């Protein structure tokens, strides 16, 4: 390890601009002559649009244009889905059109109906209030269990039962056979509550058009600028890629909500072309609540079959997944491919069968939200393991240990598609038990009891799949594109280095970590490596950042490109040193003739590449030192680990306080431990938010979003949290050349189940075996009240 290379806790290069107010988010960009767009959104969850009168709005001062579906129909294609799935019967999912502005019908509160463009934001806002839409309000359905009931309101004429797809994974017959011979079957019904991602920077888009050349530029808060260019430009707007530049400048958090491609981005771009002036839109927070893709929202029944020793024989899961009013960019893929195959977890369960009904409802579409499918799977599995342990009177640690995939059983083929490469669950478990003081819990519980508090401890041992993904596997599962990543390394004549990546950083610190990685590989100080991302005009085509893929896929692409640089450097060095290429070694930043002291530094080779000396064989070797690589991994990566949480519940008020949290994760090679730790903290807290306070709620009658602001939607705050103890206990991934597994989502995948296992443990004395998230004071208080008489009667 060099001082600032792989494994160093290097402070971030990007910090200074953010700390001095010089970040450049889309919110901050101003283009000369820009207009302001405001979207008029549906106030109804489900309604027919009988007519729209835009004339009063158009007459407003400063109003430049008002567009409705009548204007855009035939000009802008529907919002596309990038990942289609197929049902049990092999038939493709139902994929009804998703017009950018509602056409004929609105399907959720917040569905965009009209776009007003004006000289000022105030003028646009005022005019939006003057657009007159007459609606025929229809009955709405928001809950997924209601949406599949016979007689439920139907969102689409040609989607019977609101069923987008009836999907399954695993071997049903084998699983049924496992249940037939079970000693015990544990059962659990649970709800995985809907969440709002709430990146602190709301979405924003600013488009401009150059009539003289036909070039469009879109500044947008996206996690995947190149993919957005294809989906928005080629598929929706018919703008060829060469004429469409997408820039994702500083982006203030994404968490999946910005890997979705949205109607507003296309509409703003189109309007800029129509009006030949820049058009800017910035979502207000209340608008974000109504239009950013939301997460989770499952209703699940699970059964775990066990033998008399507590070994898992089979797992059966049936889930209803709510995907909202439209098929979002990756929407149907999340509760299926990224969920069912994760149900093996860290265990040797030999037979698994999971059915998922993917269902439309009159709610904001759901899509990837940090963890995307994997937290839901981990929640089901780790909750039912606890239920089974209690049923059988087994220790919760012991039952997990008995079922672990042993370290030497890797690589391990699960019964649900995935092949894990490496892992060591016993090691992460042991470390977490130690760090959390697991064995001393009884004393802490007694201490809490003396203060009138109920203390509980919860544990989760998990494995997840990330590093999305190998193109072949993804395509077999319905991806409508590749899933590789790109890297371009440009060694400049002076020997400093510019790196262009197709990944995108919106908080992850790529500008630092990728500089460390490339610096180490090329023997250059990371300070001399500049990482460029987020601009289709600068970086090679890449797939962007989501699914904890940047290091595992983007980093591996950089590794490959650096290898090509070194190979070419060796050729140059061989010529300059009059040696054979085979004899040149690259070590410590220098090209040397093996076994001699004859060497050329990296800087000298870079100089020679651009100012070829007479000995440079220009006839056979191109000048310059710049290489591009595309890396397509062989498989996903599989981070895993063990988390432990402790809570205290006040039985008088139902208030749950998280008092301790320990995370031990196997993230593979650690490129920068400071950044890994930061990712774990953030991930854990997002999951804690789901477990304890966050809840996206729609009124079941009207379909109105009841949790539509930070006043009603409870975000975790600093004083809700204890100090998180975190550590890594890594095995190296065999699925990429740098051995990384990924760390962006581990926290969010493990923490909801960990916290809820602790909550249920705290309530064990009441005989409560499950509580749904969030463990709000009201819910806990009610559970205690409902159980107390029963407990007293027993």
């Amino acid at each position, binding site marked *: 390890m060099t001082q600032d290379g792989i494994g160093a806790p290097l*402070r*971030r290069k*990007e*910090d*200074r*601009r*953010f*700390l*001095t*107010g*010089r*970040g*450049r*988010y889309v*919110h*901050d960009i*101003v283009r000369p002559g820009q207009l302001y767009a405001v979207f008029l959104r549906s106030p109804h969850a489900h309604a027919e649009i009988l007519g729209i009168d835009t004339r009063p709005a158009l007459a407003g001062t400063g109003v430049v244009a008002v567009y409705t579906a009548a204007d855009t129909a035939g000009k802008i294609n529907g919002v596309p889905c990038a990942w289609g799935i197929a049902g049990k019967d092999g038939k493709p999912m139902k994929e009804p059109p998703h017009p950018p502005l509602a056409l004929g019908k609105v399907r959720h509160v917040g569905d965009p109906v009209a776009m007003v463009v004006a000289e000022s934001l105030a003028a646009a806002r005022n005019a939006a209030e003057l657009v007159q839409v007459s609606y025929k309000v229809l009955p709405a359905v928001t809950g997924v269990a209601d949406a599949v009931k016979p007689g439920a309101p139907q969102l689409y004429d040609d989607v019977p039962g609101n069923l987008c797809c009836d999907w399954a994974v695993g071997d049903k017959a084998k699983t049924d056979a496992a249940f037939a011979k079970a000693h015990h079957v544990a059962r659990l019904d649970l709800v995985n509550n809907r969440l709002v991602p*709430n*990146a*602190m*920077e*709301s979405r924003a888009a600013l488009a401009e058009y150059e009539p003289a050349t036909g070039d469009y530029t879109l500044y947008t808060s996206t996690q995947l600028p190149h993919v957005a260019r294809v989906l928005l430009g080629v598929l929706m707007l018919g703008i060829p890629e060469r004429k469409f530049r997408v820039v994702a400048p*500083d*982006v*203030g*958090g994404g*968490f999946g909500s910005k890997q979705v491609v949205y109607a507003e981005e296309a509409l703003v771009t189109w309007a800029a072309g129509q009006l030949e002036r820049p058009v800017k839109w910035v979502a*207000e*927070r*209340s608008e974000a609540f109504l239009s950013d893709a939301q997460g989770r929202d499952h209703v699940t029944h699970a059964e775990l079959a066990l033998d008399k020793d507590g070994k898992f024989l089979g797992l059966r899961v049936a889930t209803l997944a709510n995907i909202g009013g439209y098929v979002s960019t990756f929407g149907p893929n999340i509760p299926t491919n990224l969920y069912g195959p994760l149900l093996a977890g860290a265990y040797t369960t030999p037979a698994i069968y999971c059915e998922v009904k993917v269902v439309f409802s009159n709610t904001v579409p759901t899509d990837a939200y940090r963890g995307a499918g994997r937290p839901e799977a981990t929640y089901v599995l780790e909750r039912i393991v606890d239920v089974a342990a209690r049923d059988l009177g087994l220790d919760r640690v012991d039952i997990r240990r008995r079922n672990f995939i042993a370290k030497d059983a890797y690589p391990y083929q699960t019964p649900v598609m995935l092949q894990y490469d490496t892992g060591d669950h016993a090691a992460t478990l042991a470390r977490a038990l130690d760090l959390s003081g697991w064995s001393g819990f009884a004393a802490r519980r007694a201490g809490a009891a003396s203060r009138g508090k109920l203390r509980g401890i919860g544990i989760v041992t998990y494995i997840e799949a990330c590093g999305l993904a190998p193109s072949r596997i993804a395509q077999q599962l319905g991806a409508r594109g590749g899933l590789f990543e790109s890297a371009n390394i440009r060694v400049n004549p002076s020997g400093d280095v510019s790196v262009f990546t197709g990944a995108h950083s*919106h*908080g*992850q*610190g790529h500008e630092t970590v990728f500089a460390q990685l490339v610096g180490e590989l090329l023997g250059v100080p990371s300070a001399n490596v500049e990482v460029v991302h987020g601009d289709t005009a600068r970086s090679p085509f890449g797939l962007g950042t989501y699914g904890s893929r940047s290091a595992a896929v983007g980093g591996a692409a950089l590794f490959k490109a650096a290898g090509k640089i070194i190979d070419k450097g060796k050729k140059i060095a061989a010529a300059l040193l009059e040696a054979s290429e085979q004899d040149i070694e690259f070590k410590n930043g220098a090209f040397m003739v093996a076994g001699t002291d004859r060497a050329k530094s990296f800087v000298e080779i870079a100089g020679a590449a651009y100012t070829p000396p007479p000995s440079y064989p220009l006839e056979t070797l191109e000048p310059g030192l710049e290489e591009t690589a595309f890396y397509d991994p062989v498989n996903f990566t599989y981070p895993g680990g063990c988390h432990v949480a402790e809570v205290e519940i006040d039985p008088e008020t139902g208030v749950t306080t998280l008092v301790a949290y320990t995370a031990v994760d196997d993230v593979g090679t650690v490129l920068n431990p*400071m*950044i890994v*730790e*930061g990712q774990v*903290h*953030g*991930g*854990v*807290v*997002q999951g804690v938010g789901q477990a304890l306070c966050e809840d996206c709620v729609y009124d079941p009658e009207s379909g109105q979003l009841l949790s539509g*602001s*930070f*006043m009603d939607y409870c*975000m*975790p*705050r*600093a*004083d809700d*949290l204890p*100090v*998180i103890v975190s550590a890594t206990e890594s095995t190296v991934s065999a699925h990429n050349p740098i051995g990384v597994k990924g760390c962006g989502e581990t*926290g969010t995948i493990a923490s909801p189940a960990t916290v809820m296992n602790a909550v249920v443990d705290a309530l064990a004395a009441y005989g409560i075996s499950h509580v749904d998230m969030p463990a709000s004071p009201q819910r806990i208080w009610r559970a205690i009240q409902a159980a107390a008489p029963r407990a007293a009667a027993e």
Partner: protein
Amino acid sequence: MDITLAVNGRQVTASIEANTLLSALLREGLALTGTHVACDTSQCGACTVLVDGASVKSCTLLAAEAAGATVVTIEGLAADGALHPMQQAFHDEHGLQCGFCTPGMVMSAVDLVAGNPDPSEAEIRAWLKGNICRCTGYQNIVKAICAGAAALRSA
């Protein structure tokens, strides 16, 4: 109407509407885009600036109310290119990820430490009630504020 106020040590006169928010004046009128707006209900604190030394949510104050006041934004904290000790502490302790909440966090912390030079961890966490961060889980922000406070005490 025209108002005059001191922003980051500079007297500025700005022409505003009666309903212009201080956040809008800073961001749009004065192009000081370091002050962020992340909500519309005065909950997130991304817009926090110092008005006459006290931290204020600039989205909740009319610009007109700041007439004659001394305003410091995140852009005004670093002196002569050197980071303010609180900014430096956020850098050293990895107290930021996407950076969107950061200006508000730093300004809020500067005010906390001005009134309470040696805050406990619990006091820091309680003080941050009005600042939401979605990225960091707050832990390193709390650490940074401790470190920033210590640096300011020894300065």
